[in-house]
């Protein structure tokens, strides 16, 4: 969809991240006989989770003695086919799974495929027309019976995947092996974390962050793409705008505009009309650091009134709270663009930053002011329900003040 090239993963194009070294140290630790709990990386779209998993799978751990990585990609990586000990959920299969009301049968087909491929790749396939349970048992037994081998299971894009598939994956593979001392599980994803049944996957974990690239690392990334990425680099200094976000670095270096970066981040929404509508919701809400249901109506009203679309402004104003949640909030959450964190709904941090940058342009600034004014009114009204001088009143008046000052 994007007019700008997004190259497929190549080992030479990968920029070292501190998180990679931490993971390698943990793998060494497991290899020397100290078991380690699962690692979880939660980060926004384009921050490099998939490349990190691919780099571990295809470069860092490839050919290493007594280490076998298994990669489960729950989102199809750009222009790559699954190799040995890898399985990718295709875009078509993901779409089919999201649309089918009877998920169990589809999940069984997918898990049969995943475990069947691993069983074949690992050379433990022994029967004809095996059941899902047999395939699962073969793979689990392969891990159990090789205590001298360290198995690194990489589950990429987990949180944005269908919960029915994750439930099956947990029961058929992850839960039975998570406590094996020779197994390390790395889970990545964006959006709301999946509530695994097994406490060993959910509560007894180590969270790692995937920080943006620094300014010099951003330059290094662009140099690498210039030399080996096969794309036309126009700008080499993009850090101020990209803030080190790997995907934005590459797009902006090709002279993409901030609007193009936003479009690329939203490209995960396949249907164009849906994508456009969700973008409008995000634009309306982006002046807020975080929001709750009570923000939706006034912010959408201000947005559509500014855009001179009174029918839309009235439509959202008339909606009841539940309807508003279903028609606005749930759709943003469904695409993992928004999730609850620290007392409010928060957008993917990079998307939020680029939306704000977009609205700060000369052309869009009046709309940003109108939205800030709406936010200010919301907080003034909320402050009124609390006793004078109370912490809550003070908090909301401070919030209102923040938006008033921003507009000055």
């Amino acid at each position, binding site marked *: 969809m994007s007019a700008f090239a997004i190259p497929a993963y190549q080992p030479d194009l990968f920029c070292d991240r501190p998180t990679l070294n931490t993971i390698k140290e943990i793998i060494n630790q497991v290899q020397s006989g100290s078991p380690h709990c699962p690692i979880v990386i939660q980060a926004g779209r384009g921050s490099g989770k998939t490349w990190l998993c691919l780099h571990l799978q295809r470069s860092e751990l490839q050919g290493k003695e007594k280490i076998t990585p298994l990669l489960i990609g729950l989102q199809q990586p750009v222009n790559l086919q699954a190799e040995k000990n890898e399985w990718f959920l295709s875009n078509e299969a993901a779409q089919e799974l999201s649309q089918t009301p009877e998920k169990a049968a589809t999940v069984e087909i997918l898990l049969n495929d995943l475990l069947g491929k691993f069983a074949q790749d690992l050379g433990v396939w022994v029967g004809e027309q095996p059941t899902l349970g047999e395939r699962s048992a073969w793979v689990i037994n392969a891990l159990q019976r090789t205590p001298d081998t360290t198995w690194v299971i990489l589950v990429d894009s987990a949180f944005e995947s269908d919960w029915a598939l994750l439930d099956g994956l947990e029961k058929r593979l992850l839960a039975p092996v998570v406590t094996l001392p020779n197994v390390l599980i790395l889970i990545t994803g964006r959006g709301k974390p999946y509530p695994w049944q097994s406490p060993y996957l959910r509560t007894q974990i180590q969270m790692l962050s995937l920080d943006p690239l620094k300014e010099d690392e951003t330059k290094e990334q662009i140099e690498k793409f210039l030399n080996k990425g096969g794309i036309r680099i126009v700008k080499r200094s993009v850090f101020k705008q990209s803030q080190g976000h790997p995907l934005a670095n590459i797009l902006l270096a090709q002279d993409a505009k901030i609007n193009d970066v936003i479009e690329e981040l939203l490209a995960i929404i396949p249907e164009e009309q849906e994508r456009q509508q969700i973008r409008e919701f995000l634009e309306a809400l982006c002046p807020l650091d975080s929001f709750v*249901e009570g923000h939706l109506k006034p912010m959408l009203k201000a947005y559509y009134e500014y855009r001179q679309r009174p029918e839309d402004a009235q439509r959202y104003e008339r909606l009841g709270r539940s309807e508003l949640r279903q028609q606005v909030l749930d759709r943003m959450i469904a695409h993992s663009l928004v999730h609850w964190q620290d007392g409010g709904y928060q957008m993917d941090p990079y998307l939020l930053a680029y939306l704000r940058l977009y609205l700060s342009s000369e052309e869009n600034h009046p709309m940003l002011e109108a939205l800030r004014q709406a936010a200010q009114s919301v907080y003034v009204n*909320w402050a009124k329900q609390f006793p004078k001088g109370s912490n809550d009143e003070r908090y909301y008046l401070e919030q209102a003040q923040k938006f008033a000052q921003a507009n000055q």
Partner: protein
Amino acid sequence: MFDSSLRYALTAFGFQFNPFEHLEASQDPRLGEYLIGHEALELVSKPQAAQVFALPGAGKTALRIAVGRACALAFGGQPALPVSYNLPELFPQLNPPPAPDAHTAAILRRAALSLLIGLSFRPELFLSRSPSEQNALTRLLRSLLRTPPLEYYLGMLRNADPRRLAERFDRTYAFLTPPAPRPLTALCQQLSAASTPLPFSPDLRRIFFEQVQALGFKAIFILLDGADGFAGSVEAPDQVAEALQPLLREAADWASQGWVIKAFLPMELRPYQSDSTAFQTIALDWQDDELIRVLQRRIYIASQGQTETFDAFCDGLRGIETGLVGHLLRPLPREAICLANTLLHTFAERAGRGGEALCSADIEQAIQRYSISLGIPVLQA
């Protein structure tokens, strides 16, 4: 009226179900999903004998179920085979107290049942063993499951999926996905093979452990619960302690053979606690922040991860769970769940008369009702 207003409230919050419905952990089918990372779980998951002491409603059954389910989920790959040992179910009377051999026989039988049910969900684990290993396991199960005999359970497995067996005899496994019919049929067929039962002897304990060790288990967890379920146990904790002593004082001996006792006991038994060198002693206490997480976890699951706090359904109210926990009569999960349930019902009743957002009046009224009723479902009155 009541049902429809509650349904309205659940819809208003985007809840798929009422996460505060079950005050009794053993009745809650979603317990495993609600679990928060309480440090007690980590302690009790270790392969070391443990005594967990807790007040009613502090979550000892929840903890016992959580440990059992974690083992069941990892059946075959996990260090421990979970054995649910619910005392009143096996020994309805305390007087006379069960003899040591009676405990051993009951635990072995429960262990055999746990192994059978676990294998019925993962038949491949059994079918992948050599014929001689399969025969030895069959003989062991036949020796330990006599009344009713192994055939009785196999008959149930032939006629229904393993979840029926689990629902009836060991709910630890009831949430697992059943296997395909073919391997289950093969399992039943293999286990039907005739073999001479072994005579009962304490040596069966060692033999059993060796057999499950060959299947990949590193230990057997005896999850002892229900000590507060005996009639009059609160008034006469000494009698319950006397019934448990023959088992608990042998904990080190059991542990030396791979059988690790995890006793989930009422606080009244703490003065009678067993040798502390053999056991890790854990008091199940709850801090406010943990109780807040108990409520938030349930909201997260019920809303399918959309949110984790009642704050999301308000216009400007903040820290609702903190406020609720601050009003608990006792800092226990059951109390917190009860108050949150009261809030949900209070909102349901008021929202039925109009108004969509949760407001401070709902919270104040719920706290008042909770304080008065001590958990009696107020809307049913």
